[in-house]
């Protein structure tokens, strides 16, 4: 959601942090530098909402800088150059060595703004240097069409991106240097004519650490750079004592890997900590290659380079990534229902896609529950912002919703209470929510929306949005007025609830995204889960979304008129739901209040038998079928256990009641469970038979095993 508030700001900052971390991970994964640069400018364009972003390298190419990547400012093959010198923003930024914010390019006095950007309508800009002051690489800049388009926070974000890029570039550079150096050395050594003196001269002038070893693996030469680094003498470093400077935690691994490479006569590479002359251990990468004269190993030549900064960045990123991921995962698990409830007469499916930037746990949430009156509550919400705070609020909201929904009778009154909760104590939190209460028996849905995108209904005739019942998001003002709207959902229709991550993108108007959703959902078919997958695929095009996406699909099952089937857990808590559904069913069948009570009672008593006969606790279930033909009501309860009489003092009483209340009772024990079928004709009050006072009597008693 794009709502400007302090929470919106927090949301943006958290997202930007996550974006920089993501770039860092890509850099660590060894992404190609050019690809990384292009990714970085795209990310900056998205996160800052900047139409123009460019990355310029200040290498020595004639009298111009070279543009390496751009968003909204493509690199021009014919003219990739930016004028050199401090009169432009690029040169000025390099010289400043820190971020430069230009509130209004027309008013700028410090340097001459780019004519190319001015021609494109840029009004303000921000730029930061890439690379260290000592070894600058270039400049990363973004421009906006608005004046004062960038804040110091934006500059900090941009600098974070530049630091990450700088580290990646530095790493690539040092690797290039190293490879270049080794190639030169190998070349020098390959020439038999090269004297040892010539080699040493070459090695001593090299900017990297160089060593050679003899055919026995004993170090016989160390260049000046290495001696300066370790502060030790040539004697101390040669032979096999060079390893004394290696950090004790790394020494064993270094020795093992080196001697393994030595025995196999294959190139060696190892990253380890080496003691510097000032006592500090620095991470270096050390490589060695075997030298051969014909087939015979004659020695080794190796080089090492300081990679300490890169290693530190890697470690930080690894720790941060692991922590963020862990927090995000834990929260996500606790906030979304692990499994949707199983509700008779309604199919349910949900999908949750975390945002492309992995650590960005959002405030998306959904929930489904059965209310005491037998209706089904379906809710989808989205807390503005990301990160720990949004997730925490969402957790509170979800719990509060579950409590309020049970006591409030309408979506609007429930939302009003949630709004009161969020508005309390100046919490400065905002959330959207869409709450539907669905009546399975009538298909009537009552709904209310707090600033949330509308539900989409796909019927046989096609898709349409459930319009109306809209009001402001939760937490904006108290009191706020929420409205209920009513619609009828035909059985077999599909209702889709979703969060705005599915339909909101910076580059496309909301209306066209909603239209696209309707089109895609309109042609999706198959099982409800397949429909969800087709909708996500169709709308997102297989791309990971830039914001979290929650999708909840509800499909009332077609019910043949005059029948009711339920599958219930073999648990006493299922009895209330059973009675509610049968009560509705009987009412629709035209049963009187007396008949409804008595038939419901007999069904409940039969169900109690099924529950007590279940094979212990767990996921045992029993089925109930009710049907009416004309005025004849038939109720069948099928359990998976064996028919046994109930224990204790209630023994038999339930059965006596069933027999007295129904016209006909039939018990059919079978190998896979027992069926009890009961019939009663409406409108002809079943006459009680004598003998009920004695609970153990009755024809049923004989049938019990």
């Amino acid at each position: 959601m794009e709502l400007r508030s302090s929470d919106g700001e927090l949301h943006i900052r958290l997202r930007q942090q996550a974006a920089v971390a993501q770039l860092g991970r890509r850099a660590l994964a060894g992404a190609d530098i050019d690809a990384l640069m292009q990714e970085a400018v795209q990310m900056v364009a998205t996160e800052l909402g900047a139409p123009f972003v460019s990355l310029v390298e200040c290498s020595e190419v004639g009298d111009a800088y070279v543009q390496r990547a751009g968003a909204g400012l493509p690199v021009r093959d014919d003219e990739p150059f930016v004028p050199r010198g401090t009169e432009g923003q690029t040169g000025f930024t390099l010289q400043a060595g820190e971020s430069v914010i230009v509130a209004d390019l027309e008013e700028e006095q410090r340097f001459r703004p780019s004519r190319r950007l001015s021609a494109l309508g840029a009004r303000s800009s921000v730029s930061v240097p890439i690379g260290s002051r000592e070894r600058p690489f270039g400049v990363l800049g973004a421009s906006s069409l608005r004046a004062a388009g960038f804040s110091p926070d934006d500059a900090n974000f941009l600098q974070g991106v530049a630091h990450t890029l700088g580290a990646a570039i530095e790493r690539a550079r040092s690797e290039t240097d190293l490879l270049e150096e080794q190639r030169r050395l190998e070349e020098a050594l390959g020439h038999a004519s090269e004297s040892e003196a010539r080699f040493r001269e070459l090695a001593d002038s090299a900017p990297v650490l160089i060593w050679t070893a003899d055919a026995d693996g004993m170090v016989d030469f160390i260049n000046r750079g290495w001696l300066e680094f370790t502060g030790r003498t040539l004697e101390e470093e040669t032979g096999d004592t060079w390893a004394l400077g290696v950090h004790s935690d790394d020494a064993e691994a270094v020795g093992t890997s080196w001697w393994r490479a030595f025995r196999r006569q294959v190139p060696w590479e190892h990253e380890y900590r080496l003691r510097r002359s000032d006592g500090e251990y620095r991470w270096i990468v050390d490589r060695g290659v075997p030298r051969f004269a014909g087939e015979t190993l004659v020695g080794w030549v190796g080089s090492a380079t300081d990679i300490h900064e890169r290693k530190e960045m890697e470690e930080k990123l690894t720790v941060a990534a692991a922590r963020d991921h862990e927090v995000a995962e834990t929260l996500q698990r606790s906030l979304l229902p692990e499994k949707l409830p199983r509700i008779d007469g309604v199919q349910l499916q949900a999908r949750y896609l975390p945002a492309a930037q992995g650590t960005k746990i959002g405030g998306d949430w959904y929930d489904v529950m059965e209310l005491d009156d037998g209706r089904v509550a379906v809710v989808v919400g989205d807390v503005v912002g990301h990160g720990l705070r949004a997730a925490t609020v969402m957790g509170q909201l979800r719990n509060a919703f579950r409590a309020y929904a049970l006591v409030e009778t309408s979506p609007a009154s429930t939302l009003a209470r949630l709004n009161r909760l969020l508005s309390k104590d100046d919490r400065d939190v905002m959330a959207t929510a869409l709450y539907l209460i669905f009546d399975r028996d009538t298909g009537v849905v009552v709904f209310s929306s707090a600033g949330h995108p509308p539900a989409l209904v796909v019927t046989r005739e096609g898709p349409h949005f459930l319009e109306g019942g809209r009001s402001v998001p939760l937490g904006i003002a108290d009191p706020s007025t929420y409205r209920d709207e009513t619609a009828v959902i035909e059985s077999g229709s599909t209702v889709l609830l979703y969060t705005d991550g599915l339909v909101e993108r910076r580059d496309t108007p909301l209306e066209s995204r909603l239209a696209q959703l309707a089109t895609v959902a309109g042609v999706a078919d198959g099982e409800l889960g397949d429909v969800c997958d087709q909708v996500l695929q169709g709308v997102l095009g297989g791309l990971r979304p830039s914001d979290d996406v929650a999708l909840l699909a509800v499909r009332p099952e077609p019910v043949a008129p005059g029948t009711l089937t339920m599958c219930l857990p073999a648990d006493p808590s299922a009895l209330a739901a059973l009675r509610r559904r049968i009560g509705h069913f009987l009412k629709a069948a035209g049963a009187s209040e007396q008949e409804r009570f008595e038939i419901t009672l007999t069904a409940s008593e039969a169900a109690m038998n099924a529950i007590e006969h279940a094979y212990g606790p767990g996921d045992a279930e029993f089925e109930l079928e009710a049907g009416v033909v004309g005025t004849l009501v038939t109720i069948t309860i099928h359990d998976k256990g064996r028919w046994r009489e109930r224990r204790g003092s209630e023994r038999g009483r339930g059965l006596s009641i069933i027999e007295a209340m129904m016209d006909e009772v039939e018990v059919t024990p079978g190998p896979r469970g027992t069926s009890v079928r009961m019939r009663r004709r409406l409108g002809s009050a079943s006459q009680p038979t004598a003998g009920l006072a004695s609970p153990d009597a009755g024809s049923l008693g004989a049938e019990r095993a």
Partner: protein
Amino acid sequence: MSTSADLTLEHDGDALVARLRGEVDMTNASFIREELTSSVPNDASALVIDLSDTLYVDSAAIEVLFELSRRLGRRRQDLRLVVPAASPLRRLLTLTDVGAVAPMHESLAEALEGP
């Protein structure tokens, strides 16, 4: 969704009146029984259970009524029920012979007058 009942107790003269609203089934019957048995003072003459707003009772609830009647009987206290003529519960209570141990009255006033 769960079964819910609401029990309110008040004294009327030397009788204790218990108004039971909602539903009683096997999930809450024992709770109702504990509440009622622990609430009747020794010197009360009768417990009147008003079932006017009771929507549902099952065999477990019937069993509670029988047990209450036995306990109170030992203390020479009456158990009376208020069951309006139109209540769907009336037939069940008659069929199960609860009426034999706990007389049914059509109104609270009638029940308080005694047998």
